[in-house]
């Protein structure tokens, strides 16, 4: 579903944010992407979804290169940033309707999906208000609903659980499981190792722009906690 090959991104000024990253996310995966602050998680994600350019490598979504056909790739994926800056001058329902128009969702489908997701996230009553009046968590929920409206094959999220209340976080986790059961894929970055451990079937650990461990979570942890594995792997890299 998502294939990252030899991805390298160096910012102007010389900082190499990501170096020769290789990663595969298959259909049915909930793939956790973990690392310390400044490790390169957000840069990787932004390169995958087309926000930033990269010097080397390629990203394929469902076999299509993001460089060759970015529009087709973007129609298959949905991205939710860690701090979703939405169109504050729109109401919630206007934003969702706009997203549905972008993805050419039919009237009947959009009404049904908006109804279901907004009820699940308890956002229905606020849809008539301007997004500028929403709290951070409400904007997060709206961004999630907007991302799900076209039933993407690949959902990419950057720190999705920050700002969500416990009920909304549980709702999102359930949605992720449902998507994977349907053969879709989820790729998300997080600092919260507990969440990654319980939710993901695969993880990748990145440090200083380089992938230092990746694979099936059970094979990686071998019965230990993800936290201790993470600390050990990161320390080994520092020692080497």
């Amino acid at each position, binding site marked *: 579903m998502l294939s990252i090959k030899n991805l390298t991104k160096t910012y*102007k000024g010389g900082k190499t944010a990501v170096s020769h990253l290789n990663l595969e996310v298959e259909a049915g995966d909930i793939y956790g992407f973990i690392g310390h602050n400044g490790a390169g998680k957000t840069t990787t994600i932004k390169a995958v979804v087309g926000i930033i350019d990269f010097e080397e490598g390629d990203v394929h979504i469902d076999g299509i290169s993001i460089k060759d056909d970015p529009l087709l790739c973007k129609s298959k994926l949905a991205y939710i940033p860690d701090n979703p800056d939405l169109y504050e001058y729109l109401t919630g329902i206007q934003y969702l309707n706009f997203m549905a128009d972008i993805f050419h969702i039919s009237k009947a489908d959009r009404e049904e999906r908006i109804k279901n997701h907004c009820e699940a996230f308890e956002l229905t009553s606020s849809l008539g208000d301007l997004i500028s009046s929403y709290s951070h968590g409400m904007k997060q929920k709206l961004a999630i609903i907007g991302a799900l409206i076209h039933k993407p094959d690949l959902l990419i999220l950057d720190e999705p659980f920050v700002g969500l209340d416990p009920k909304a976080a549980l709702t999102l986790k359930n949605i992720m499981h449902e998507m994977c059961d349907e053969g879709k894929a989820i790729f998300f970055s997080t600092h919260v190792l507990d969440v990654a451990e319980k939710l993901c079937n695969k993880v990748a650990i990145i440090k200083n722009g380089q992938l230092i461990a990746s694979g099936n979570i059970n094979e990686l942890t071998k019965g230990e906690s993800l936290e201790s594995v993470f600390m050990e792997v990161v320390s080994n890299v520092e020692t080497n």
Partner: protein
Amino acid sequence: MLKQIKQLTTLQLCNLFGLNEIRHTRDKGKKERYTLMTLVWLLLIAMLVFYIAILSNAFISLGMAEIIPIYLYTITCLVILMFSFFKASGVIFQMNSFEILVSLPLSKSAIIVSRFLTMYSTNLLLSFLVMIPGTIIYGLSVHPGLLFYIFSFIGTLFLPLLPMTLSTAIGTVITAIGSRMKHKSLASGGMIILFAIAVIIANTIVSNQSSMLTPDMLKNIAATVTSQIGALYPPAIWFGNAVLHSDILALFALVSLSAAVFILMAVIIQKYFLTICTALNATSTKNNYKLQSLSAASLLKALWQKELKRYFASSVYISNTIIGYLMMVLVPVALLVAGIDKMELMFQCPGMIEKILPLILGIIAGIMPSTSCSISMEGKNWWLAQTLPIKSKTLYDSKILTHLSVVFPFYLVALILSWIALKPSLLSTLWLILIPGVYILFSSVAGITINLLFPVLVWENETRIVKQSASTMVTMLIDFIICLPPIAAVFLLKNIPVDLIMGITLIVLALLTGILYTSNNRKPILRT
């Protein structure tokens, strides 16, 4: 507290015009863009200084040297007034940074005073840019004493205070009233425009008194103009008296009034700061939405509707662009009211109005297109354009459509009124339709081109993007420059038929528009 004020003001000023970013960024591309922007600003400043020098020399050659300080003082005050309207809510009453600062061991007064000082500093810069060239030209011509220069310097130091106070007060009241309305930005923008129209009409009434000039008054035109300016803005006369006649009482009155009004406003704002901030930043929520039937739209229509909402959600965006379109309508209104002959006499261009009106309307309509900052206005929302399956052509088309939707009603009214005023021939009617139309199209597309070259997607204050960004400045400059050749040709190349000049203008602009449009659409969505 003085130390805190100094620290806070320095902090706010250190990134004036992006200086701190230029100093510390390692991004060579960014440095190059900033260098280019600096050159553009320097060019605009040079043009301003040149214009002031030419104007001052013109006054001297007409025997009206004593008008120079008064006129320049008034013009500077008006510019500060117009530019500072929205700075009040954006700079002085900005809550986000206030909340961060007030949690530190800083006095609230120091925070507020530092914001005023920041506004004052930028306005003072403008004041000096206008007053110094005029003062030098006057000095070289009239050879006044030392007191002239001393009083000019002191007067200029206090120049920004009154217009700043007035614009802060009016801008705050308008924003506060607008915040209570459903479409608050539209309401605020509308009130600003009404205010601007009132100023223009007042100025026109005052100027129209020249039609009632007697021969004696005409002999002493300088005094007549002085009294007209005095009717509009009395402090300018006090400044004039102070510098021209070394009238220390006039200087004292000017300084006292400016300082007193400013201090009074500062004290009121300090006392009611949080109340005013709350009123300005109030949002209402109903929290009672019930799902309704939704309608689907095409991609272009969806983007266009979103873009229109963006436009009407910003009062500074509305007022900055619509003022130009209003002027486009006011020109034929003036023709209808005053008559073509009188207008030609006033501007010393007999038989020319019918010929140049299409070009004049074109300049006015094209000078400030909304597209010139439409990409920058996306700001923090740009990630949506980058990650959604939207072609760059569709995105840019939606922005062009938005500009055209807003300008079209004004264009149509201006066209009808111009036709009624001029009763032109068939060919002249054609130019009246096509020339402003092609300028509008050109400016729409050029605005996108230039904004793609000078995008600013990280900003705190819309006013900076709409009024002060390199993109809007360069667009204005280019649109102005592109109008000059045909106007110059009409006036200077009298042996060339006007219809030929119009035809060439139409073809050249249409071609340029096509080239820029195609070029824009080939570029992918801007990556950050």
